[in-house]
């Protein structure tokens, strides 16, 4: 194993980590503010990919429509999330957590079947515009050009979320509501709207992850399954509700897998899980401080 190969795999692993981060950031946001482990988060990721594909297809896969398609995915999932939260979930906040989790499971079952109904079982592909097709050589590794977009998107999203949480009033209110929602209410803020917004934002990130992953892979039913478990593990390893924890967890996941390929390619898939297990056995509440 030479240094160049290691660096190459690191770069490759980073772009995967970025997708994981975007999705799990949404999950951890919802966990932190609403304290709901949203089981249909993965379905939204899938939905985001399908919507992006549909918009691109409607535009005849015109290169100019590509970015529009990428934007349409998250917007659609945010709307779906918002609708579910406003109409149903918001009526359940006073109930036990178990009910909230099972509710999101029910929504997952419905959403997955709806995606099947609407798009059918065929797999689709969303081709990036010519300028982003093909690969560039980074550190001797052929890296798809679109992965550069991912490498940029991750930090951008992290930065954006940080700005939101610390520089906007809404973000600060959401952080405050995470610890004491009644107090936020008596200060004159409609907490339920804050929750709706935070939930929609979380869902938006799931859809964004899906839309961003769409040009790199086949868009299929079931693409949500392994991702959901991965992102749950990531937020647990990072510390529930902790945004930076999601970033750390994603990097751990993405990088251990791609670097693990150099060490023991046959079992590289198991590396992230082994690392997660090790972390949790030592620190059962995750690496960074949990918001819970």
């Amino acid at each position, binding site marked *: 194993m030479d240094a160049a190969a290691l660096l190459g795999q690191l770069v490759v692993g980073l772009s995967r980590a970025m997708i994981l981060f975007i999705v799990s950031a949404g999950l951890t946001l919802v966990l932190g503010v609403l*304290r709901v*482990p949203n*089981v249909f988060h993965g379905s939204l990721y899938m939905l985001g990919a399908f919507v992006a594909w549909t918009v691109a297809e409607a535009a005849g896969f015109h290169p100019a429509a590509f970015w529009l398609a990428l934007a349409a995915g998250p917007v659609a999932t945010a709307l779906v999330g918002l609708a579910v939260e406003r109409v*149903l979930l918001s*009526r*359940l906040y*006073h*109930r*036990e*957590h*178990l*009910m909230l*989790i*099972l*509710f999101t*499971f*029910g*929504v*997952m*079952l*419905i959403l*997955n*079947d*709806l995606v*099947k*109904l609407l798009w059918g079982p065929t797999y689709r592909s969303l081709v990036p515009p010519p300028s982003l097709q093909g690969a560039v050589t980074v550190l001797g590794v052929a890296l798809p050009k679109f992965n550069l977009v991912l490498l940029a998107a991750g930090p951008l999203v992290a930065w954006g979320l940080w700005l939101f949480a610390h520089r906007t009033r809404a973000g600060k209110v959401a952080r405050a509501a995470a*610890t*004491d*929602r*009644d107090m936020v209410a008596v200060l004159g803020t409609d907490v339920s709207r804050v929750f709706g917004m935070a939930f929609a934002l979380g869902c938006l990130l799931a859809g964004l992850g899906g839309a961003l992953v769409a040009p790199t892979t086949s868009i299929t039913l079931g693409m949500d399954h392994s991702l959901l*478990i991965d992102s*749950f*593990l990531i937020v*647990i390893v990072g510390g*529930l509700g902790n945004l930076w924890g999601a970033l750390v967890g994603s990097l751990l996941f993405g990088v251990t897998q791609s670097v693990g390929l150099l060490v023991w390619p046959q079992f590289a*898939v*198991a590396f992230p*899980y082994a690392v*997660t*297990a090790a972390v*949790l*056995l030592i620190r*059962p*509440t995750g690496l960074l401080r*949990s918001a*819970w």
Partner: protein
Amino acid sequence: MSGWILVGLLAAALAVAPVVLPPFLLYLLALILVTGLLATSLNLVLGYGGLYQFHHGVFYGIGAYVAAVAITRLDWPAWLAFAAGPVAAAAAGLVIGFFCVRLSRLYFGMLQLSLGSFVWIVALRWYPVTGGDNGIHGIPVPAALQSLPAAYALVAVVVAGCLAALWAVVRSPFGLTLQAIRDNPQRSEVMGVDVRAHQLAAMVLAAFFAGVAGVLYVALERSVFPNMLFWVLSLEILVMCLLGGWFTFSGPLVGAAVVVGLRTLVGRYTEYWTLVLGVLLILLIFFLPEGIMGHLQQRWGAHRTVAPRPAPAGDARG
């Protein structure tokens, strides 16, 4: 008293089932019994213990896999392998429980979900032993169990025995203590109860009975599949408990009957069975939060119950 009459009638119905039911319905009944035992074992920790056991299916799968692997790969005598399944499941319950009971409710569930997922991944990837995504099929079972009525008889007798044992546990000092812990762990602690030890013991017991269910599945289907350890199945078992009523003893059994029955029935007409289940689940959460049996109990006033206390905002530590 009427309860015992009902139990007697049910036992009689189970006894005559092989004579009156066509084979497929007999098989379905056996499957419902196995699933019902699985759901009831979950409810020992969920409804009676107040633990968010999100990944109970793991113990079911471990019980089934250990029995299957012992028979097909290690050439153990079938009955010995059948005994090994529940023991292994209980051991897994001890290990997973050891790490989980230290944590608060939701973290408990989440950690369990992740530890359970490791077990699932092991089953899915350890091809030489577990058969990977393929599972293990055509497991040779003792000649006495070859026919469906024989397999049914085993399932019916064992499930009835396990339910009786679980009933005894629920009514025992341990069961009462467990319910007290569910209602108020802190108060129990101050009362002199070692809360974690009880929770751990409950997890081991529940895992054991889930393992029994897993072994019965092997006896009935002669197959094991990695999906038995997948989190989706675990959530389905949770749904069964909720549907039947997770503060009642019979609820999970009823829930299992409804879910397994509907899956078979609806599955014949539409490929969108999960959509139906999802809608059913949401309706349930909104309109029948105490589940079918819980609702009936309230209606008939067998016990006066109160709505579960809403978890206060900072509850996670509970």
